[in-house]
């Protein structure tokens, strides 16, 4: 009984804290301890997810409000059409002036997003995370940072979404829309029985190849040597990818950020663990 009470108090505290931080005008950075969530989620179960039926129907305007295009009103009213074609027309969504080009799959508490945002101010960066509380944390963090840096117009190019990318990546992105995908410190799923749940596999790599444009790059980093080997083997075995040579890898500014700025990266640093980095370039599809 005592345990229940403590639990309830904790939950209540969390809710109060989150409600307070979400109020208008508050630009305080959120504290992680009110957003912690178990580090694993089952990608196979039917979470209550919100996702568009297709990329055309995705409303990006709430994530990137500063990029919304003001469309003249008369353009939005369609010409009189038959009822059938009206049914077919995708729901009218507010357009934004740019497409998301960088995705951080499993963005966690958003360290990488926040570090990347100022380095590529003209590119829209999207974090995708399956855990609800963690996504809320990143949302609140971005909101606070945008408010704090309003004059410098920083952090307007980052957004976060709750999504199960293993299932619904093509619902968000069109073919060849992305130029970079980050996969940082993914869940290692040590048991062989759970390998199907790993975020990198030959069959899933085909989906990454689909959303990446030729020349685009997948960035991977992990502290688990075997997972690193696994990712390298699976990307190497996939005909749509080639490994980026080490020289080029180390010259990429994103690699340094990925090493030092991700939350997991910092934790590994504290524990004096190893960090294994591998980059893969999307090749052109073969002729047929």
């Amino acid at each position: 009984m005592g345990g229940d009470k403590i639990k309830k108090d904790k939950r209540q505290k969390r809710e109060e804290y989150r409600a307070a931080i979400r109020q208008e005008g508050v630009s305080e950075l959120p504290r992680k301890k009110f957003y912690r969530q178990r580090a694993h989620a089952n990608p196979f179960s039917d979470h209550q997810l919100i996702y568009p039926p297709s990329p055309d129907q995705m409303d990006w305007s709430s994530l990137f409000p500063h990029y919304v295009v003001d469309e003249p009103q008369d353009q939005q009213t369609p010409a009189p059409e038959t009822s059938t074609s009206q049914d077919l027309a995708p729901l009218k969504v507010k357009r934004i002036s740019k497409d998301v080009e960088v995705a951080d799959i499993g963005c966690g508490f958003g360290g990488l997003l926040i570090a990347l945002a100022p380095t590529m101010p003209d590119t829209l960066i999207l974090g995708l995370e399956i855990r609800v509380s963690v996504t809320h944390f990143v949302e609140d963090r971005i909101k606070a940072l945008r408010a704090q840096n309003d004059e410098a117009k920083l952090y307007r190019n980052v957004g976060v979404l709750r999504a199960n990318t293993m299932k619904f990546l093509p619902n968000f992105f069109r073919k060849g829309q992305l130029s970079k995908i980050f996969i940082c410190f993914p869940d290692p799923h040590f048991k062989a029985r759970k390998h199907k749940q790993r975020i990198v596999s030959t069959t899933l790599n085909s989906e990454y190849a689909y959303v990446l444009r030729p020349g685009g790059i997948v960035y991977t980093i992990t502290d688990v040597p075997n997972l690193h080997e696994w990712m390298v083997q699976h990307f190497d075995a996939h005909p749509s990818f080639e490994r980026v040579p080490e020289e080029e890898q180390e010259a990429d500014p994103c690699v340094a950020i990925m090493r030092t700025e991700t939350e997991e990266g910092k934790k590994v640093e504290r524990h004096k663990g190893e960090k294994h980095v591998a980059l893969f370039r999307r090749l052109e599809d073969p002729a047929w």
Partner: protein
Amino acid sequence: MTLPYHLVKVCGSIVFAAQGGDIHSFSSALQHISTWKYPAVQQADESKAPSAETEESPAPEGPPAKRRKVENGKDSVSNGQPKSKKNAQAMPKRPCALALTSDNNTILSADKFGDVYALPLLPTTTTTTTGSESAPSPLPSQPQSRSATPSTPTTTTTPAAGQTPPLFKSQANELTVHTKRNLRALENQKISLGRRALAEQLGANRPQFESTLLLGHVSMLTAICVGTVSVAGGKPREYILTADRDEHIRVSRAAPQAHVIEGFCLGHEEFVSRLCVAPGGKAEVLISGGGDDDLFVWDWVKGEVLGRAAVLEHVKGVAGQEEASKVAVTRVFACTWEGRTGVFVVVERVPALFHYDFLEDNTLQHRETIPLPANPLDVDLVEAAVAAPRLLVAVDTATSTSTEGRGSSLIALEKGEAGWRQSRVEDLPAGGDITMSTTELQKILYSTESLRKLSDFD
């Protein structure tokens, strides 16, 4: 009670119908020819009676000419024994849907875990002994277990190679686990490593035939089909179309480039359960149905929706406005006669066949609802060449409301001037008796609606 016929398939002039583990063959005049029995079912374990894989694996879909080759020269009709089980192939996961490639040499098996495997219709060993000229292309044999080593899309599992599988390797180390408890677990893992390695060596629990992993979804696959598009001045291009429970229809290139996803047909908001490619010979058109209220018509090459056709509203016409609130499409079947293309749709637990016209401008128009005495389970076209098309429908007689609905579970529908004339196929072979409650049987026969997502947890 008696099992209903739940699958019908017409191959040239032979009609196959499955009843639990039995497959019966009929002539096109619907005279019974022979019966093949699934061995396991005869052993009285009825728990896994009617399911797709028991029916389809021994009955390769293909024209009779092809079948004769399979039968190694035996004339399949004249000896009255057209079916012999050519190969029993155990798959790593339960197959959900099967398709044949356009060269009729490879089975594509889509499974519950989301993977599509290619397996030769005739195992290589068989083809070499029979000296068939069309042996599947030999692939580099390289042992692999799906989980432990990278499985390239063109890797073949050939356990006959007899090489030792890769041993279990501990994935964590002292640098990646930090808590005391995890470190202790790591110690224990290392201790038990030897035992595990031994078990790995002994229990080579892998499929005993060639299979190639082509592609995969992270979702249960529900349908697979092969589409072919001709290219001006080139070889026709073959694609694999796969549908899953998470509303996707994926278009991939066929092997050996199955790793290239060409596109998606996105727009369904519920599971997709049925695909029908190239209705009326229009190669680039796809009709899909599932848990949505409408059928979708796609240009699958471009990934564009061409139109939708309501199903729910016509289901309401049969089942009542109030009773029917959702549909689960279980069959979408297109056939052409007299220059017209008809699309027949079966909806789970609805005692009617929905007939749509597939028009020149790629739209589907509801033509009529053909009431049936009981729930249809499958439908196929027996004869198209004659002026009046003849359909064969398998129905679940147990769901019939009237006594006249009982009896034969195969119904022939013939297009007459006054609509569709229904006649029971009599003189069906005896068999199909099972000891199973009606509810249990219904659960097996009507499984499509269960694909709908219900759970609402975070």
